[in-house]
């Protein structure tokens, strides 16, 4: 047994979460078992409302699970942050400039202040935003803001990076660009990544391993290895037949879950409409 050692970055054992809605008891997710190695890139896919985002928020420390075990180890590496997160909406602060937004999280990190300026410049150059250093988020496009949000996560040198459908609101071209950018940034130091998405294509493009969740209350139904060689070309990969097979397989697998989830959402909406009256 390799329990309770540090060979895993994340260990979930029978993890579940319930909460009390206004009207009823809700089970967000149930009996999640997962081990993630240091430096592994794991994508979690599942139908809407299956609890994948809630699971991620538990890992982020924004929410607390109600049962089971959640261990997140921290490697004793200096000048690294325990975690960072990229959200669906960029979550930048509108009163801070581009560099101000990075400085804000750097100030909270264990990275010495004298390095901040160099780190900010290097990262902004990396994502092509150095010219916009003193701009405010409202002066940038949606794609640029999400790039900034991405680089904000990387600049604190996180050991664990949590990503909650970060590209879902971007148009196709921006999404593909940011996927490539993410892989490039990740390859520098390879922090552990847990990436939640409902886009199966995206999952297989990025991950080392894809976890498939059932409908609500979600639990892991299957895991699919995704060991395409790196560095990957985000578009080339789509021509790969093995890639296509895997995407097709998981899509089929999720189809029934998604249909059931849709029915569940319809019932839920109808029920809420009834109780609202």
């Amino acid at each position: 047994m390799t329990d309770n050692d540090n060979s895993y970055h994340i260990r979930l054992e029978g993890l579940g979460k319930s909460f009390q809605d206004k009207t009823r008891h809700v089970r967000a997710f149930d009996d999640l078992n997962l081990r993630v190695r240091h430096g592994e890139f794991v994508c979690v896919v599942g139908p809407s409302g299956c609890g994948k985002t809630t699971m991620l928020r538990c890992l982020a420390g924004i929410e607390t699970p109600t049962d089971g075990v959640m261990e997140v180890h921290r490697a004793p590496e200096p000048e690294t942050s325990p975690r960072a997160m990229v959200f669906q909406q960029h979550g930048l602060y509108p009163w801070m400039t581009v560099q101000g937004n990075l400085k804000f999280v750097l100030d909270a990190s264990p990275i010495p202040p004298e390095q901040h300026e160099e780190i900010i410049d290097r990262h902004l150059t990396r994502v092509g935003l150095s010219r916009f250093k003193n701009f405010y988020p409202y002066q940038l496009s949606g794609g640029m803001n999400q790039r900034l949000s991405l680089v904000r996560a990387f600049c604190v040198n996180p050991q664990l990076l949590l990503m909650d459908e970060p590209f879902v609101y971007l148009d196709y071209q921006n999404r593909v660009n940011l996927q490539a950018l993410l892989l490039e940034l990740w390859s520098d130091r390879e922090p552990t990544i847990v990436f939640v998405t409902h886009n199966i294509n995206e999952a297989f493009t990025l991950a080392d391993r894809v976890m498939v969740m059932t409908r609500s209350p979600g639990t892991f139904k299957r895991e699919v290895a995704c060991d395409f060689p790196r560095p990957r070309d985000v578009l080339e990969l789509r021509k790969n037949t093995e890639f296509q097979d895997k995407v097709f397989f998981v899509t089929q697998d999720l189809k029934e879950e998604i249909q059931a989830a849709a029915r569940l959402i319809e019932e839920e909406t109808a029920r809420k409409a009834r109780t609202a009256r």
Partner: protein
Amino acid sequence: MSNGERFLDREPSRRDERWLFIASPIIVLLLWEAAVATHLIDGRFFPPPHKIFAKIWELAVHEDLHEDVLASMRRIVVGTAMGFFPGVLLGIGMGLSRWTRAFFAPLVALSYPIPKIAILPLLLIIFGIGEMTNLMVVAIGVFFLSLINTFDGVRRIPKQYFEVARVYGVSKRDVFFRIVLPATAPSIFTGLKLGAGYGLILIVAAEMIAARHGLGHRIWNSWETYIITELYACLFLISLIGIALAFLLEKLETRIIHWKQKDAD
């Protein structure tokens, strides 16, 4: 107009709005002047504007009008400051802490509906006729408006701002000064603008009874001595103070909260 359009058929441009801003009061003043000259309205109750302006000139030169103006303005500024800062502090406290909110919410709900000028007699008993009474009336009015707007602003801060801070391990101190304060600044400003405007109303009313200087005091005097032009002169000046105050705060706001206006565009 070029295509045979008639004047009012088109929407006014920015430029139109700007010149009308000056022109419309002048037009009304001229109509007023004409109406008095033709005896359409009674010049005793509605003295013609040129007499009002002459009165302002006369008061400014021969009497201490500027002292009254300054006294009123000082009271607005000092009284506003006295109410604004405690209001903002308690508003933030109530916005952030459930205990604070639970304790103060009923007190605020009970005392907020009281017309602030109704407290004046009580203040007169406590502080007597003098500066403190006047300042306190303004301060109390501004306090509530600042408090309520600030509280509302804190409650409307998007949850995600706090979540990002939480994930990245941002200190409580930084959350307060670098998130809560700037995120609430637009609402704080709304409270300040409303408060300063309300302060002007309150100070004029208070000065009628509780002061020996100030525009309110002078208005009351001119009523008692039946000098109607002086009464109008004071009303004109109060209006000017109000506009100047609103203009200054507006400028300050666009300066400090530059991201908010742009956000809305």
